[in-house]
């Protein structure tokens, strides 16, 4: 009995408990609204179904969020991922559109390599600003976030570049071994990052840099090199996500591709239990967070609510999950509300009028 209760407490106290609850509730709500929601069919050797669609559509977000997880684990943040998605997608589409045969596999692979190379350079730029020059990450990456959209439009010359290339399109909507290719790619990247960080000391080193960069440098870790590395990885992940986004619609739009993906990715990471202060990360939690966000978006679409209004639900979920995870909020509900709080709130009223 006693062990049961402590077991239950350990379960509800787990940092991924509430995100999982929200995800299950969302899936349940969908199933009630549309009974066939959970069914998955095998058609022409490919898996089809709403759940498969959700996972497929969340693949770019998972990729971006995985890179973001490593950056946030070092105590940084990368706001430029959305712009990097747009630039890499634009470069790949531009190169393919200049090919005489857009369906040639070699041409597509060259385009991907070229775009990935540019993304790595952009990641290195972020890395140099943060690790070498020592600029605060949120500002260093803000530069590329602002300028990157302009660069993406420069590449596409303000147009929406449409391409007609089967191999490129496959990245977004193709299948491999019954699974959508996008899911396979996201899974492969997730496993690769998990293996490199959790099967070697790299993950521990990243966390130690996030915990205290100076102390880890004194302990013999090249902090600056690790910091540089995570921004490059983040940019590479964003580039692959950019390929998926543009391949999904077979066109590159410098303005719309990857818009706000950085915010969604940061949300996914936070929902997944990684602290924005750095020093700890959970790749599984991040993937769960990304799936939660995409499920929420799909649910809102399925219920015929305007896509923009889905932001309202997103706001509610973000605040709810963050509050439940916040130590300050938990402590307040374990103990009684401190009387000082009421006094401060009451004293607040006259101050509001000051700027008027």
């Amino acid at each position, binding site marked *: 009995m006693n062990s049961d209760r402590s077991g239950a407490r350990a379960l509800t106290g787990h940092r991924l408990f509430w995100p999982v609850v929200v995800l299950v509730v969302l899936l349940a709500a969908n199933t009630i609204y549309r009974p066939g929601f959970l069914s998955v069919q095998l058609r022409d050797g490919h898996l089809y179904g709403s759940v498969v669609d959700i996972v497929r559509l969340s693949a770019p977000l998972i990729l971006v969020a995985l890179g973001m997880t490593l950056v946030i684990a070092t105590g940084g*943040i990368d706001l430029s991922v959305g712009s990097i998605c747009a630039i890499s997608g634009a470069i790949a589409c531009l190169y393919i559109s200049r090919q005489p045969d857009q369906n040639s596999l070699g041409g597509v692979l060259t385009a991907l390599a070229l775009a990935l190379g540019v993304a790595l350079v952009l990641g290195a730029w972020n890395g140099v600003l943060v690790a070498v*020059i*020592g*600029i*605060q990450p*949120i*500002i*260093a990456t*803000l*530069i*590329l*976030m*602002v*300028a*990157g*959209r*302009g*660069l993406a*439009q*420069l590449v596409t010359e*303000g147009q929406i570049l449409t391409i007609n290339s089967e191999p490129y399109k496959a990245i977004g909507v193709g299948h491999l071994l019954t699974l959508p290719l996008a899911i396979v790619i996201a899974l492969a990247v997730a496993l690769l990052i998990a293996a490199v960080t959790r099967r070697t000391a790299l993950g521990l080193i990243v966390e130690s840099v996030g915990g205290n960069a100076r102390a880890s440098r004194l302990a013999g870790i090249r902090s600056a090199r690790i910091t540089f590395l995570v921004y490059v990885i983040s940019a590479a992940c964003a580039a692959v996500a950019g390929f998926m986004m543009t391949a999904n619609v077979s066109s590159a739009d*410098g303005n719309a591709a990857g818009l706000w993906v950085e*915010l969604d990715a*940061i*949300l996914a990471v*936070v929902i997944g239990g990684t602290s*924005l202060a750095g020093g700890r990360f959970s790749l599984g939690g991040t993937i769960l967070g990304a799936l939660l966000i995409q499920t929420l978006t799909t649910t809102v679409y399925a219920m015929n609510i*305007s896509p*923009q*209004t*889905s*932001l*309202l*639900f*997103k*706001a*509610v979920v*973000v*605040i709810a999950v*963050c*509050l439940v995870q*916040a*130590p*300050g*909020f938990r402590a*307040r509900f374990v103990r009684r509300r401190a009387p000082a*709080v009421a006094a*401060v*709130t009451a*004293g*607040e009223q006259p*101050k*509001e009028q*000051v*700027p*008027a």
Partner: protein
Amino acid sequence: MTTLSLTAARTWSRLPRRHVPVLATGVLLLVLYGVGVSQYRAFSNVQVIFNVFIDNGFLLVVAVGMTFVILTGGIDLSVGSVVAMTAMVSAFLLGRGAPAALVLLVALLIGPTLGFLMGCVIHFFDIQPFIVTLAGMFFARGMCTFISDSSIPITDGFWTRMSQERIGDPSGNFVSISVLIAFVVVAVAAYVLAYTRLGRNVYAIGGNAQSALLMGLPVGRTRIAVYTISGFCAAIGGILLSFYTLSGAPLIAVGMELDVIAAVVIGGTVLTGGSGYVFGTVLGVLVLGVIQTLITFDGSLNSWWTRIVIGGLLFAFILLQRLIGIRYK
């Protein structure tokens, strides 16, 4: 003579480091304007400067609010959405036939209320401002489309009068009422930051929140106050925008928070807090406005060059702050 030059040299060497970014922004503004005047004959027209103010009045007001938040070391991502929501609510209520005074009151209350709530969450539950104001941004943007999916025109008499009223000199140059409102906001904000306790507290918290707390300063109250102020400025900005466009549209001012943050940083305010001036923010907004005007005058450059140039300027100014040794945490 010798003493004079000596004093001058000494004052120059004593020029506080925190003034350097603002001076650099001022010099940049003069250079940009000089380039404009030398390249295009019509650029020297006074109305060009007035137009920069008319087109960027709402940006200026919102940037002033953001300066408060950034001075405490926080950030407010919700301002663009709050601007849109305020314009949207005004347009909606006016369309329903509500009196202009009531609409103004309601619209001006929404922003500060949201800012107050966000400040409370940030302070009491110790959640990162970035995440909380992100949720606020989603909420406000969602509310816009919840009110209406399409743009709502404003035909109210008071609004059209405010929009069309021109205050000018005999030679035909004019500004709109929005510009005057923006100036009043700037003056009040500059006074509050420089000469009131609230202003001192803002700088103290941005310098070091821990020390400010140990000194007995009301850290929590001040922190909530700055988000409320930012929300209030965003609400005024929303009203000014609705004067300017005479409509409320759900997707207006998307990404405006980036321009605002860029203007504040270019204006010399350090993003970790504790150093910066409202005057710098005014210069920052003017730099953005003059760049836009230059690109419009040129005609051959496309609009995306604005973003690239702003990004480049951000880089230059952050590097400058770094070089002159303003502390980064």
